[in-house]
């Protein structure tokens, strides 16, 4: 035997193989992060080109709780570079975190679940090698994102030191979520559960940071996103908070390896329990099965968005407080009541975005079932194509409405209680309800893609969600032509409570969603079933 074999033998080979498998995915993720920063940099420099513009901007966002909750700590806003970091850092951190989660789970738990790890581990490969290769793959992607963001910001004219600190903070947050995914992938036996748990962790980290930033308290230090943003690029330029990220990454990776040593290949730490020997009546239909398959995700999203609604409702208080504390803001902003309304309109839109993401994930579940060969036995029984796809479409459409309305009702209830005005509940619930048709249009796009372009459906449907997200969140801060924004169904929704309810655009959106649904059902009827 030539070289000694350790538990790490083969890591290098597996790492190269993983990078080869992801040679297209990772560059897209990295480019997406860099592109967001570059666009923000160019747009902000165009928008705030005079000191007066910048001062107005600083006064308005410095007292806007909605913006702070979404973006981060309002520091360094006296320079355009600081404004860029404030506007974009939270979103690129989310992009990097999602990249890290999906990359790590894809090369660890997903491979193991599919039986590929067994094949690999039967060769001259050490026990820890597949997991470490997965972590390293995601880590390389995080470092690449850091460098790309630094380069993009510098190239668009921002100071190099702050630019690379901004990039490094984004990459460091990605590293923490890489290691967190590695841990969760050891605990649960399924990729789906891994994504659910880490997704919940990401949401909690975001909310802790949002509350901490709005309230201006120490809660931000409980969140890895808070650590990343505590670097204050372009103003304080602090590198030391990144040590927290690195320490957490190292500790979590060590924990993942320790857990890996305590479980069997293919299993999680939690042993599966025996289930019912016969099916309940409710399961015995395509819709019953679709509900059963999707109930976990639906419950998770509902709970998550209800909690978010709770936080959004609670933070509305701070909108008024911040406004009262900031006399300069009154020169640029309307009165406190309409400021609260503007804040609530913004939170409705972000909730709608999340509901649209849920709707697309629910529609794409149908594609996952088809590709895995699990649609075949049903369609070979007496189940028609429209009935099968319709079952998943029903879950997606009704489920997204449930998720959205549950969140909106929570915010509305919190506000009604805080103001002591019962009428607030109906008024604010209407604000979220107005987004249901737009969310259905996004779901309809995914359904049409499923029917017409099944192999590309997953990638293009998520690209559509990303498009809607970017246009909704950056419509004002990116200097884009109006039609770019108008392509998003969310832009057609009246922003109640700031605007009046209008039935006409909502009716049009519902008609468009119905047309897209028909396209999806029709396309699926005419095409081959595509397995694999």
């Amino acid at each position, binding site marked *: 035997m030539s070289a000694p074999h350790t538990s790490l033998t083969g890591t290098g080979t597996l790492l190269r193989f993983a990078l080869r498998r992801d040679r297209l995915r990772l560059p897209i993720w990295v480019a997406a992060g860099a592109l967001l920063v570059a666009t923000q940099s160019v747009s902000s420099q165009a928008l705030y080109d005079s000191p007066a513009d910048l001062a107005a901007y600083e006064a308005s966002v410095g007292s806007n709780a909605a913006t702070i909750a979404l973006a981060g700590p309002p520091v360094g806003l006296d320079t355009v570079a600081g404004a860029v970091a404030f506007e974009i850092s939270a979103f690129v951190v989310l992009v990097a975190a999602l990249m890290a989660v999906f990359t790590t789970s894809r090369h660890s738990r997903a491979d193991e*679940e599919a039986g590929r790890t067994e094949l690999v581990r039967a060769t001259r490969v050490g026990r820890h090698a597949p997991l470490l290769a997965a972590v390293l793959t995601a880590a390389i992607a995080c470092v690449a994102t850091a460098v790309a963001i630094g380069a993009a910001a510098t190239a668009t004219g921002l100071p190099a030191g702050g630019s690379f600190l901004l990039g490094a903070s984004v990459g460091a947050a990605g590293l923490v979520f890489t290691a967190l995914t590695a841990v969760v992938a050891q605990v649960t*036996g*399924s990729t789906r559960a891994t994504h659910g748990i880490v997704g919940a962790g990401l949401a909690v980290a975001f909310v802790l940071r949002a509350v901490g930033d709005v309230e201006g308290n120490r809660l931000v230090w409980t969140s890895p996103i808070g650590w990343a943003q505590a670097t204050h690029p372009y103003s304080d330029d602090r590198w030391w908070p990144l040590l927290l990220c690195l320490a957490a990454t190292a500790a979590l990776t060590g924990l993942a390896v320790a857990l890996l040593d305590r479980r069997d290949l293919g299993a999680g730490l939690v042993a*599966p329990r*025996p*289930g*019912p*020997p*016969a*099916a*309940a009546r409710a*399961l*015995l*239909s*395509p819709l019953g*099965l679709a509900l*059963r*398959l999707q109930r976990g995700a639906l419950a998770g999203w509902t709970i998550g968005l209800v909690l978010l609604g709770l936080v959004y409702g609670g933070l509305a208080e701070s909108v008024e407080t911040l406004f009262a504390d900031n006399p300069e803001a009154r020169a640029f902003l309307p009165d406190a009541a309409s400021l609260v309304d503007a804040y609530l309109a913004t939170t409705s839109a972000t909730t709608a975005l999340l509901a649209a993401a849920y709707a697309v994930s629910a529609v794409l579940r149908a594609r996952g079932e088809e590709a*895995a*060969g*699990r649609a*075949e*036995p*049903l*369609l*070979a*029984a*007496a*189940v*028609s*194509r429209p009935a099968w796809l319709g079952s998943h479409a029903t879950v997606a459409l009704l489920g997204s409405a449930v998720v959205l309305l549950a969140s909106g009702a929570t915010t509305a209830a919190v506000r009604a209680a805080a103001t002591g005005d019962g009428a607030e509940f109906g008024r604010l619930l209407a604000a979220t309800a107005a987004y249901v048709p737009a969310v259905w249009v996004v779901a309809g796009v995914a359904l049409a893609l499923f029917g017409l372009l099944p192999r590309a459906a997953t990638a293009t449907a998520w690209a559509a969600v990303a498009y809607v997200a970017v246009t909704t969140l950056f419509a004002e801060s990116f200097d884009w032509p109006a039609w770019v924004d108008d392509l998003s169904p969310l832009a057609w929704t009246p922003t109640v409570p700031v605007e009046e309810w209008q039935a006409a655009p909502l009716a049009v959106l519902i008609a468009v969603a119905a047309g897209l649904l028909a396209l999806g059902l029709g396309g699926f009827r*005419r*095409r*081959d*079933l595509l397995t694999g």
Partner: protein
Amino acid sequence: MDTTISVSGLVKTFGATRALDGLDLEVRSGEVHGFLGPNGAGKSTTIRVLLGLLRADAGTVRLFDGDPWADAVALHRRLAYVPGDVTLWPGITGGEAIDLLGRLQGGLDPARRAALLERFDLDPRKRARTYSKGNRQKVALVAALASDAELYVLDEPTSGLDPLMEALFQDEVRRLRSEGRTVLLSSHILAEAEALCDRVSIIRHGRTVQSGSLSELRHLTRTSVAVETVRPVTGLAGLPGVHDLRSDEGRVRFDVDSDALDAVVRRLSGFGIRSLTSAPPTLEELFLRHYGQEPVEDRLVRTPEEVRS
């Protein structure tokens, strides 16, 4: 005679790959029909066209006098299907999957479901993610065999089953046949087809190369024999049905037609047999021997009149 499945000139392409290239298949009502071919010959593709999961590019396909693409749901009420590669829902138990599939196929016989679970030794409380390949196969088999169908479409149903289960499976297919059901059994194991089928169709490269009853096919089956004897064997070459005779240092190897086996073994016993191994030919060997590397067109045994009857 009634025909349950009738396929002629079926073509299906996937991009540049021509998976089915003018395939013919006729399955008569009440027969167990073997659908044989090496891996990748197009068996599963044909079955998916028959089930309306894939759309034919050319040719005619009739299932119970219906069009499998247009009338899929109505036709599926009359059949039960076991896929070649059974994938189940990871979080759903075997028992739940059986009930779901059975219900969607048109209803299960609860007594038969219980008896089959018992016979196949399958725990219905386990979640599908923890089942082995063989156990997933059993779930699909129990769901199909416990349902009351006119046609059973079984795509390599015994891959992953152990020999005991294989024997149980063969009993079940004989039961279906005695009840007058029609069975389309795809396989690449010739012995399984020999044990069960009334007629077989053999396909290769997406075309039918042989179709007929087992006795018509009998000439295709040869057994490979290797024998070691006390005295050197003589006179074997002169016996009918012996092919490819080779001998080295007291060992003799040859292939023999199945119907000539008896005479050959009687001849061998006169020389003092020390050891004897015999192996039925695999389908792959059969193809190699009968069709070699020559273009399939030259060897096609097509009987369109019979196929379209």
